């Protein structure tokens, strides 16, 4: 009897849809790096993407009221953790999204779990967020280190790049990227000829590149990120590495890095991303609206920004389906896992039991300057990796939520 009544009420809410159904109120916090290293890949662009997602959703569902605030964690776990605590406790934020920087993301994930709220990661890469450190309040969108290693590694080996030399940033992230990629390379029949570990934030890579050159490996894997990757690629061009027949595989490269390098230097670079602004008309149209929502002119959205949009859209979908009133984090996330994801940017996918969102990934190659017709025309697609292959299999992650 009670169940029937509940179902009827639920149906009534859905049926009313637009005009005068009960209000669903949510508050979202966009926590990103607004002022330092990751301000380009996340930052104000993520806030713009969030505004778009909220505007689009509330247009179709006027009974949903969404408040949004944003904050700058400045890449410091202390500040990120302080803001997250304050937002959840005092400002009544229901869901925090973005957070580039794995250190901060891990901290916020813990806090969301403690306070039973929701955290959707779009910016950070640590695959432990859906592995050993997974919890029922965290959803990981867009990418992670396993997907990057697997995407680029497997695809390169299959297209002939079967001997590898690694240039690795000497810290946990670099090591993880290197180990994951080496495993994929060897599983697919390739061989790792050698590696060299460079300190984080190295300026000059000439001596490391010299070692890579003399190894004669077909592929030089760059297990580093940010400024290190840009410097490695820039100097590799100087030393004529690509001209000499070796390929460069960037294991963590964003479109903004390619913009920083310029096409003459970056041409031929192979990388994996899950979203590209120029891939189709829908993405191009979205990018135009992204600029109108306040993103800086001349910059192009990255997959992280797309992840913020998709994440918020899916969250609001799930939240709407649960009806008005208070709902704790775990149940909303459970709802998100029960509805398949489908948004204009990432297409169809799902949120897995460990919090990992599965969607297709793409292997891109950076165009030659002659092939690029307009600013931002960076990539040509070399391969599409289907969603179920792109991410680490559920049973390999050691996530406590996935028993067995």
């Amino acid at each position, binding site marked *: 009897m009670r169940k029937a009544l509940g179902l009827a009420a639920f149906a009534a809410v859905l049926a009313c849809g637009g005009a005068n159904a009960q209000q669903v109120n949510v508050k979202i916090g966009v926590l990103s790096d607004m002022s330092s290293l990751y301000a*380009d890949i996340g930052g104000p662009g993520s806030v713009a993407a969030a505004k778009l997602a909220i505007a689009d959703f509330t247009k179709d569902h006027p009974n949903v009221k969404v408040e949004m605030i944003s904050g700058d964690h400045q890449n410091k776990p202390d500040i990120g953790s302080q803001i997250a605590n304050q937002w959840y406790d005092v400002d009544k934020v229901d869901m925090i999204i973005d957070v580039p920087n794995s250190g901060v993301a891990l901290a916020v994930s813990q806090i969301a779990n403690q306070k039973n709220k929701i955290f959707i990661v779009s910016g950070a890469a640590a695959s432990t967020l859906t592995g050993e450190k997974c919890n029922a309040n965290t959803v990981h969108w867009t990418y992670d280190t396993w997907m990057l290693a697997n995407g680029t590694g497997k695809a390169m080996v299959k297209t002939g790049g079967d001997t590898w030399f690694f240039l690795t940033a000497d810290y946990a992230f670099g090591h993880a990227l290197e180990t994951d990629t080496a495993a994929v390379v060897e599983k697919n029949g390739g061989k790792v000829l050698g590696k060299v570990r460079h300190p984080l934030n190295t300026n000059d890579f000439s001596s490391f590149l010299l070692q890579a050159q003399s190894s004669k490996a077909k592929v030089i894997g760059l297990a580093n990120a940010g400024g290190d990757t840009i410097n490695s690629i820039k100097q590799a061009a100087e030393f004529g590495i690509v001209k000499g027949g070796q390929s460069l595989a960037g294991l963590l490269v964003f479109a903004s890095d390619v913009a920083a390098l310029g096409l003459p*230097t970056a041409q031929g670079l192979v990388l994996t991303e899950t979203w590209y602004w120029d891939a189709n008309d829908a993405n191009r149209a979205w990018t135009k609206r992204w600029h109108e929502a306040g993103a800086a002119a001349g910059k192009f959205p990255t997959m992280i920004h797309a992840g913020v949009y998709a994440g918020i859209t899916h969250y609001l979908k799930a939240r709407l389906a649960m009806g008005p009133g208070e709902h704790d984090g775990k149940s909303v996330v459970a709802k998100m896992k029960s509805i398949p994801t489908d948004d204009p940017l990432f297409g169809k996918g799902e949120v897995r039991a460990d919090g990992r969102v599965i969607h297709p990934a793409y292997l891109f190659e950076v165009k030659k300057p002659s092939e690029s017709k307009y600013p931002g025309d960076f990539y040509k697609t070399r391969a599409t990796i289907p969603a179920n292959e792109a991410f680490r299999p559920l049973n390999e992650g050691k996530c406590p939520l996935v028993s067995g």
Partner: protein
Amino acid sequence: MIEIFGIPSQALFGQLLIGLINGSFYALLSLGLAVIFGMLNIINFSHGAQYMMGAFAAYLILQYSGLGYWPALIIAPIIVGITGIVVERVFLQWLYKLDHLYGLLLTFGLALIFEGVARNYFGSAGLPYTVPESLQGGRNLGFMFLPNYRAWVIVASLAICIGTWFIIERTRLGAYLRAATENPTLVRAFGINVPRMITLTYGFGVALAAFAGVMAAPIYNVSPQMGSELIIVVFAVVVIGGMGSILGAIITGFGLGVVEGLTKVFFPEASNTVIFVIMAIVLLVRPAGLFGRRA
């Protein structure tokens, strides 16, 4: 092939040459710092930011006037040097009577401002700048492939370093400058405009940093944080060489470049700590630095 410590001699010579090239970079950067401290007793913590401004100026010159690398090598240092002069007149001149450390703190604050503004307008990822056509490519030396641009870096750095040393140590202008640092009142009594000399010297030191920035633009990522990453290392170089000594800065710069290069071969993970270890040791054994004049 002869092997030295397990590394083929060919590879070793290649790494040594690279170390020398990097050393020439360090020398060029620390030259400006040494001039400013040696002549003016100012610890210019904004040196890294001014290096960054030089690289950015080169980029902007290319964007807005189409002038490439070679004109930028002259124009950028002049522009940034002028900002240096403004900084000295507006901020630094009030601090000469105070403890050194206030100068350090002020220039530290200025460095934050420069970096923050650059980041706001240009983002943090970086800006593209390529090696000029005339210097692209390289030649195979047998034991390694030497890009032409790197060869140019050594030549240019050596030229500027030796030129600066010569001006300061061997010309009359340099003599006035050195005298003015030791005893400004007396030198003023001789009718020499000491404040103006100080201002111009600071501007010159800043221009040297900017010059290094333009040299760096084609090979290192042109980003707002490029200076802050380098400044600590450069300070270590200057301190090891002796804070007042121009020759010390030059020799130490080249020397440390070679040491760092060798560390990258034998023990790459430690290559960014080795300079600090050396600095701590030198400071304990010879507090004035290897070539320093005052303790």
